[in-house]
């Protein structure tokens, strides 16, 4: 009997990744909204706090990162919802392939669509917040290492709440406490850079969180998806 | 006893407000917890009992319908 089309793990990964990217490009709004949200919040802070350059420079790292958190939170809903609604999620769960592979693909797709735009636009916004020049590289590194962590941890919450009607607020309640370590180390790294101090330690910790998230969260995400699709 | 009089006891060396605020909150919080837990148990039991009664009535009604046919 012919085996049929059996995918190698790599091909499965590529397939799910490219599918998610293609779908997102056809629904540009889903991608642009969180980005615009990010831009708008950062713009609101000087309006609320006052344009004094020194104050802004001091709190810029915090503003950038909290806004990144909130923008990511906004985008998490999109991760599994449409697949849940049309049944594709169930099919993926029922397929003979290990869920680790395609969950990884989905989260990385989410990061490419949400995290990378943030990383690209952050320097512009950081300049608007009067972030000192020494901190720009640190901001880039913390965002590069940190935004994937946000996607992975957020995916757990998204998976748990995908079947619920009022999932949004619950998602924030569950996920934001888990984001705290990334927030603390990222802002500390950017702060340290502004004083000319080394920040490799903080980056290493964020890196450790990234590796931990990459290897461990897919299991939690799979369990959560199985609960939601029942 | 550490305190000479009831007034001294309530005063807590000047910190009375904070000490009694703390213990007051703790007492009320734990009291509400206990009362709510017990009432939830009672409600669960009564809900199940009501459901059993309703089911029995339904069975009875179904039986009577069958007998009439």
């Amino acid at each position, binding site marked *: 009997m012919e085996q049929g089309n059996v995918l190698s793990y790599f091909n499965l990964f590529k397939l799910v990744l490219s599918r998610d990217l293609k779908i997102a490009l056809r629904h540009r709004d889903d991608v642009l909204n969180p980005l615009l949200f990010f831009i708008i919040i950062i713009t609101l802070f000087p309006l609320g706090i006052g344009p004094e350059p020194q104050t802004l420079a001091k709190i810029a790292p915090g503003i950038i990162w909290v806004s990144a958190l909130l923008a990511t939170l906004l985008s998490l809903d999109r991760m599994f919802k449409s697949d849940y609604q049309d049944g594709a999620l169930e099919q993926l769960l029922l397929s003979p392939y290990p869920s680790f592979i395609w969950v990884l693909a989905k989260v990385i797709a989410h990061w490419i669509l949400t995290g990378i735009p943030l990383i690209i636009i952050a320097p512009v916004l950081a300049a608007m917040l009067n972030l000192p020049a020494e901190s720009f590289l640190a901001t880039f590194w913390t965002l590069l290492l940190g935004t994937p962590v946000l996607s992975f941890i957020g995916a757990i919450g998204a998976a748990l709440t995908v079947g*619920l009607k009022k999932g949004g607020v619950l998602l924030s309640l569950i996920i934001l406490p888990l984001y705290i370590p990334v927030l603390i180390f990222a802002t500390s790294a950017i702060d340290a850079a502004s004083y000319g101090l080394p920040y490799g330690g903080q980056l290493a910790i964020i890196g450790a969180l990234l590796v931990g998230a990459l290897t461990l969260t897919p299991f939690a995400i799979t369990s959560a998806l199985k609960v939601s699709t029942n | 006893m550490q305190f000479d009089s009831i007034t001294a006891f309530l005063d807590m060396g000047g910190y009375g407000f904070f000490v009694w605020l703390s213990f007051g909150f703790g007492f009320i919080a734990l009291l509400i917890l206990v009362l709510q*837990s017990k009432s939830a148990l009672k409600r669960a039991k009564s809900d199940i009992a009501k459901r059993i009664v309703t089911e029995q009535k339904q069975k009875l009604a179904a039986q009577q319908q069958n007998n009439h046919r």
Partner: protein
Amino acid sequence: MWKWLHPYANPETTYHLSDRVIPWFGWLSGSLLTIGLVWALLFAPADYQQGDSFRIFYLHVPAASLSMGIYLGMAIAALCGMVWQLKLSDAAVAALAPVGAVFTAIALFTGAAWGKPMWGTWWVWDARLTSELVLLFLYLGVIAINNAFEDKQMAGKAASIIALVGVINLPIIKYSVEWWNTLHQGATVSKLGKPAMSLEMFWPFVVCFLGFAFFVATVTCIRFKTEILLRNSSRPWVKNLMLEQAE
């Protein structure tokens, strides 16, 4: 070695066990708390530096340690549920979460009320208080997710996942908050060090702690019974039990 535990995977057996155990826990808790609190409030010495405000310690510290212990217990229950597919674990997680949340709230409130006379402000972003606040959010997350699902089975499994994810993150969060706090210590030196406990303070503390611990056990068992009933309401043993009690 663990065979003696096996019968207790049956909800009915454990329900009756909880039933039998509640009066014992209740009396132990009541008597220990009475003795402990009277001792703490009336007979224990005032602190050399903090005076009588130190008496808040006898409520604050047990509440804080228990808040963390309950979370650990909840996570262990969640783990057992996931590993051995025990349905009772979901009931345990649901029963423990509100109790833990209340104790966390008490720890936070008494911490603030103690902080005002000691540090001058109601709230300090002290590492321990901040971690405790995050713990409260983690508890609220578990409770919220338990209530969000209509199907109790799904709710229990989802809550277990969140409890486990939380317990893995808890040390990371505590470490990062502690690190963050020492970074921002600056001029304000923490006036609240761990007091060197004299024996006269230690014993009332132990009695209070045990009293509160048994209190947690009592209330948790009551809530556990409720959760078992709610998740097994269509079973014959529940129906028989309800009919028996109605007579």
